[in-house]
């Protein structure tokens, strides 16, 4: 009995972790399972029987296809714009000293800490006052706006752990600032930028609240679901959601894998050396030339 108790004490927290993770994944399983459902009426809420019909005809609802294409187009354009703008801000914040840094930081943090309803409602207020017609353009403005901050945060975290000595080496070897940026900085930063772009894309394609306020007649994937939920959501939506999920997981795993590869490539960071030192708080000394080989 006491051995059981000891085992539980030791592994209890991992058992809990597995249970908690299972809880987090339940709705995802429900979505995947219900994409094979054969509902009797219009509502896909109770399990009626197994069918592959809705997977075979995933793209058979024109309005749903249009909504999905709208979402993809919007997300693609908004990702390109917000990734460029956000990366430039991150570069300025990490690499330059300038007056107004705190204000800039504040302006970047505050949209992430504002409820989406407020962002959506205030944008709509402005568009209403100017009589601007709601649609693709207003959505694009909104999506770029709420993505920028997240791009900055992701790219900045990459830049902070960035080994400047590689750039200095390039400069020492005679490369100009732009050549250095193109051939050294950008490739090393690429994983961070890709991760930020993926996040921006995911945020855009999943956005409901802000789009709900600023879309007008324009229908995105989440807005289609919202509209359809009153009269019954087609099972194909569940199939599409499952496809989106799988694509996202693959993209995420690939990014993580690529990031780690990039980290290994750039693994000459001084703090790695400091790990061997027995003291926690020792400020990492700059590595002796050639000491960073391993």
């Amino acid at each position, binding site marked *: 009995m006491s051995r059981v108790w000891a085992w539980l004490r030791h592994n209890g927290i991992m058992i809990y972790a597995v249970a908690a*993770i299972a809880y987090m994944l339940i709705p995802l399983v429900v979505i995947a399972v219900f994409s094979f459902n054969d509902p009797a009426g219009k509502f896909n809420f109770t399990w009626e029987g197994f069918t592959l019909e809705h997977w075979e005809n995933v793209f058979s609802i024109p309005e749903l296809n249009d909504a999905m294409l709208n979402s993809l187009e919007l997300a693609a354009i908004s990702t390109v714009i917000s990734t460029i703008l956000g990366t*430039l*801000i991150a570069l300025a914040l990490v690499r330059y000293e300038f007056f107004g840094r705190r204000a800039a930081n504040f302006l970047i943090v505050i949209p992430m800490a504002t409820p989406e*309803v407020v962002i959506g409602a205030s944008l709509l207020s402005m568009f209403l006052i100017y009589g601007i017609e709601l649609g693709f353009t207003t959505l694009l403005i909104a999506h770029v706006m709420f993505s920028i901050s997240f791009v900055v945060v992701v790219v900045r975290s990459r830049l902070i752990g960035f080994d400047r000595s590689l750039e200095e080496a390039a400069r020492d070897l005679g490369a100009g600032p732009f050549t250095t940026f193109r051939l050294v900085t950008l490739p090393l930063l690429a994983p961070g930028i890709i991760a930020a772009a993926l996040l921006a894309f995911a945020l855009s394609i999943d956005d409901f609240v802000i789009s709900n306020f600023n879309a007008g007649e324009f229908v995105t994937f989440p807005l289609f679901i919202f509209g359809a939920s009153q009269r019954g959501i087609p099972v194909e939506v569940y199939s599409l959601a499952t496809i989106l999920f799988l694509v996202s997981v693959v993209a995420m795993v690939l990014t993580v894998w690529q990031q780690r590869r990039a980290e290994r490539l750039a693994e000459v960071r001084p703090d790695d050396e400091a790990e061997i030192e027995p003291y926690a708080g020792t400020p990492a000394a700059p590595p002796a030339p050639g000491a960073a080989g391993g």
Partner: protein
Amino acid sequence: MTSGRRLTAYALLAPGLIWLLLFFVVPLFYMGELSLRDGTLGNFYFDWNFANYTDSLSRFDEQFLRTFIYAVVATLIALVIAYPLAYAIAFRGGRWKNALLLAVVAPFFTTYLIRTIAWQTILGDNGFVVDALKTVALLGDDGRLLATPTAVIAGLTYNFLPFMILPIYASLERIDIRLIEAAKDLYSSAHQAFLRVTLPLSMPGVVAGTLLTFIPAAGDYVNAFYLGSASQAMIGNRIQGLYLVERDYPTAAALSFTMMLAILIAVFIYIRFAGSEALMGDETEEAT
């Protein structure tokens, strides 16, 4: 610092920050202007009409209170669920760490609405949760979960849980294990070491996580829409309805402003109480 370098910095910042100014800060002013208008749809005119604020407060005081309670309860439950999970991943995850973290963010890979609608299925009147609760007599024969505060709070908790787990995980991960070992070398029990070393060092994550959960939960209207009924309506539902259905823009704008203000005040008091250095610690570190 040459002025050339400074100019480069501003040139890099300008496009993005101008976008944020024009489409985040400026719209707030327009919402403020709209909230002080008077009149009817088609003819709203600016009139310093502060009555919109007092009216919306007294009309929706019930929703305000409910929103606050739901958001606080959901945040506390999320904290209780998230802390041990983050602890397990950070200290016991081993080579499964990345897989576990992927599982934590996995819900974000499906559309928010679909996730919530999946909970509608799970908590539905014919679902297995209701069946199970009826079997153990925790729920009466005609009892239901949908359209109850429980369902709405459960939805809020679930949907914003990753926002709680990730910052706590990040702060636990950063803790130097040797500090905990030192506590044990100095004859503290595992309990004491946790309470006096690990927990205080993870507070920045707890503060960040509770804020990142509370703020979106307080502004949410999707969970109350799908999992609740009119008697579980939150402020977000009213703002959405007033803007998009009733088109009573001045009242809607006043209500949005009041909500934003209420959340800001709550957050400010909380940070004062919890200690702002816990939250801003990273900022100064990053500014170097």
